[in-house]
């Protein structure tokens, strides 16, 4: 697909989302209170992303997820731009930004350049290659949405992934990667719009710049991670809730409910956000009507993927309720595997006991990288909130600053964080990104007012500059990998050989296998790169082919592989018979070695590729350490069978 078509598709996606959003905003009389061009563009765009993903679900399950249909849908959505034609003003001539404004615009330009470098590079993030982009690619290849019986990376709410699918179907990979960049910037625009409710334009711009350079945004914004786009839905929800309170009206509350529902349909944690926002909606003398309006809107926009899971496996929150609902064992999931999965999940994702003390200290643990598993350094929320903490607390103590708007911005993250922490789900800090900008804007407002009152503007500005400097420096290091590809005129295959282990094996498979074959891979980040049918034989999150480290039953393993239609396997690194210090995978390794020796698995290609400990800091790469990759063909006649 040509670059021109990719760029055209990107602009059409943007136009369609603004069009869909403008139609909805006009229908719910938002024209009365969304006046500024920035606010209209930001809100209509974010609402439109939700509408697009929502509509694509129905096209997807109807088997109409293809290029022509997606182009048609985007063109239809663009028609809604008619509702926005009087909303886009022009910047009056003669306005000169202040010195601070100029500096912030320069910082924004630098961030844009870094983001563009990532946007025009092939996707390299592991989660995106494993499922964020691999699932849309699979859907588009099949022309339909299919159920993927894999928790955390398959049977999840996929509203945003459907918009990735539309980008892929219309403009190809380049449109998809640029689309994630643009939608991330949509969240940045809404930070500015929300901040303008509380502070002047230049500090609102500072908030947006700080948000766009946050480590967690950097990590997931340009990749397929959904948190930043969920942040956009959370920001839109907060804006509509503030308007609902200001106007004592139900229409903005319904829009807030729709945006919350889009978050629900994009990530399971959206349910926690819905509960938090729902509580705030209920805090009113007309609690029943408001609760009803908000709840109906959330259900309407958020139900799809939960129904989808329920229809296929009986658990709308797969696999959370599997045992609670007393569901029977199936080929997809069993009670025994459920215990294994949840035990492993608790050990790897929850380093902290759920105590009041840890709840209180979590921000310290996460900000100062005390607990590594929380990933507070590389993918955290930065240092800004901690720097502004004393001023924000001092501001909060002043009654005149505790406006309903500020209270909404503080209550939403507080409730979300509390329920999230005690729910027993993953404790990685990046999952708090959706509510982070709300806290950022509230802190910015409270701290700024305190700084003005106590003549602390200089240290306040220094705190902001320090936070921004650290974040932009981090972004520069992160972007080096992509700059090398874009500016160094590197080929796509060379880029992947530098970023993903064992890509030569994928190239071999794409050349030698056909659509009649199916290859099972254990290294999940390779999935996106295959152009032939592929099965993610994840050792810990699926049981269609039980590939746990303790698996030793050869006959069952082969029978499951045949039932799944697998004809080839790709084994890498620790899953092969190569000597390893890790003994946990020993039983499975022995089984594979035996199957290779007996001819049940016939080795057809072998590759050695350099071990890649970090994509960002490639200097960590060892010249001597290599990873072995073996492609093996399944030879059923030579395999053990179940009696």
């Amino acid at each position, binding site marked *: 697909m040509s670059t021109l078509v990719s760029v055209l598709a990107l602009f059409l996606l943007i136009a369609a989302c603004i069009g869909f959003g403008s139609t909805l905003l006009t229908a719910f009389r938002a024209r009365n209170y969304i006046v500024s061009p920035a606010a209209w563009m930001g809100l209509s765009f974010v609402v439109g992303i939700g509408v697009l993903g929502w509509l694509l679900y129905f096209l997807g399950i109807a088997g109409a997820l293809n290029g022509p249909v997606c182009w048609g849908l985007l063109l239809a959505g663009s028609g809604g731009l008619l509702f926005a034609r009087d909303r886009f003003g022009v910047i009056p001539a003669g306005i000169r930004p202040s010195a601070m404004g100029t500096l912030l615009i320069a910082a924004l330009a630098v961030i844009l350049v870094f983001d563009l470098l990532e946007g025009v590079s092939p996707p390299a993030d592991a989660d995106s290659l494993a499922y964020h982009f691999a699932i849309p690619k699979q859907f588009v290849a099949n022309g339909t949405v299919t159920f993927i019986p894999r928790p955390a990376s398959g049977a999840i709410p996929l509203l945003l992934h459907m918009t990735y699918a539309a980008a892929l179907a219309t403009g190809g990979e380049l449109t998809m990667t640029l689309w994630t960049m643009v939608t991330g910037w949509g969240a940045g625009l809404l930070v500015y719009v929300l901040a303008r409710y509380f502070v002047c334009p230049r500090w609102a711009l500072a908030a947006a710049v700080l948000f766009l350079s946050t480590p967690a945004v950097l990590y997931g914004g340009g990749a397929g991670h959904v948190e930043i786009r969920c942040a956009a839905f959370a920001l839109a929800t907060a804006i509509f809730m503030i308007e609902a309170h200001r106007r004592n009206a139900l229409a903005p509350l319904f829009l807030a409910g729709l945006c919350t529902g889009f978050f629900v349909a994009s990530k399971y944690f959206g349910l926690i956000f819905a509960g938090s926002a729902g509580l705030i909606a209920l805090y009113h003398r007309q609690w029943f009507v408001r609760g009803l309006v908000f709840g109906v809107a959330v259900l309407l926009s958020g139900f799809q993927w939960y129904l989808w899971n329920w229809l296929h496996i009986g658990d709308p929150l797969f696999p959370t309720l599997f045992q609670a609902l007393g569901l029977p064992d199936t080929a997809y999931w069993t009670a025994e595997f459920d215990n294994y999965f949840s035990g492993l999940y608790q050990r790897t994702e929850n380093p902290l006991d759920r105590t009041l003390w840890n709840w209180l200290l979590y921000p310290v643990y996460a900000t100062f990288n005390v607990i590594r598993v929380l990933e507070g*350094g590389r993918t955290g929320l930065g240092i800004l909130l*901690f720097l502004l903490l004393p001023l924000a607390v001092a501001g909060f103590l002043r009654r005149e600053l505790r406006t309903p708007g500020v209270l909404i911005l503080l209550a939403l993250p507080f409730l979300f964080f509390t329920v999230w922490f005690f729910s027993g789900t993953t404790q990685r800090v990046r999952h708090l990104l959706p509510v982070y900008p709300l806290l950022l804007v509230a802190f910015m407002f409270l701290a700024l007012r305190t700084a003005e009152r106590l*003549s*602390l503007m200089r240290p306040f500005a220094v705190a902001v500059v320090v936070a921004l400097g650290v974040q932009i420096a981090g972004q520069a290091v992160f972007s080096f990998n992509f700059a090398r590809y874009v500016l160094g005129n590197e080929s796509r295959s060379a880029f992947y050989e530098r970023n993903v282990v064992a890509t030569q094996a994928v190239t071999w498979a794409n050349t030698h296998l056909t659509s009649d074959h199916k290859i099972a891979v254990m290294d999940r980040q390779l999935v996106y790169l295959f152009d032939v049918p592929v099965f993610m034989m994840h050792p810990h999150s699926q049981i269609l082919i039980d590939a746990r480290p303790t698996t030793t039953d050869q006959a069952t393993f082969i029978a499951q592989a045949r039932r799944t239609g697998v004809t080839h396997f790709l084994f890498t690194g620790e899953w092969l018979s190569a000597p390893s210090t890790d003994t946990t995978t020993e039983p499975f390794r022995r089984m594979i070695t035996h199957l290779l020796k007996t001819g049940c698995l016939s080795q057809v290609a072998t590759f050695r590729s350099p071990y890649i400990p970090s994509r960002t*800091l490639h200097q*960590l790469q060892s010249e001597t350490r290599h990873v072995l990759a073996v492609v093996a063909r399944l030879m059923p006649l030579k395999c053990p069978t179940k009696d």
Partner: protein
Amino acid sequence: MTQPSLRARRMAQWFFWIWIVGVFGLYVLSFAPVLRILGAFLTA
């Protein structure tokens, strides 16, 4: 609304400067294990 006294504002300034330096220092220290790697990266 009464304005804070000059003494209160000076104390607040001292406190906030110390806070900024302390928090930033701790943050940098929290990255100590990777600073060495970063140094190697930048000088490569």
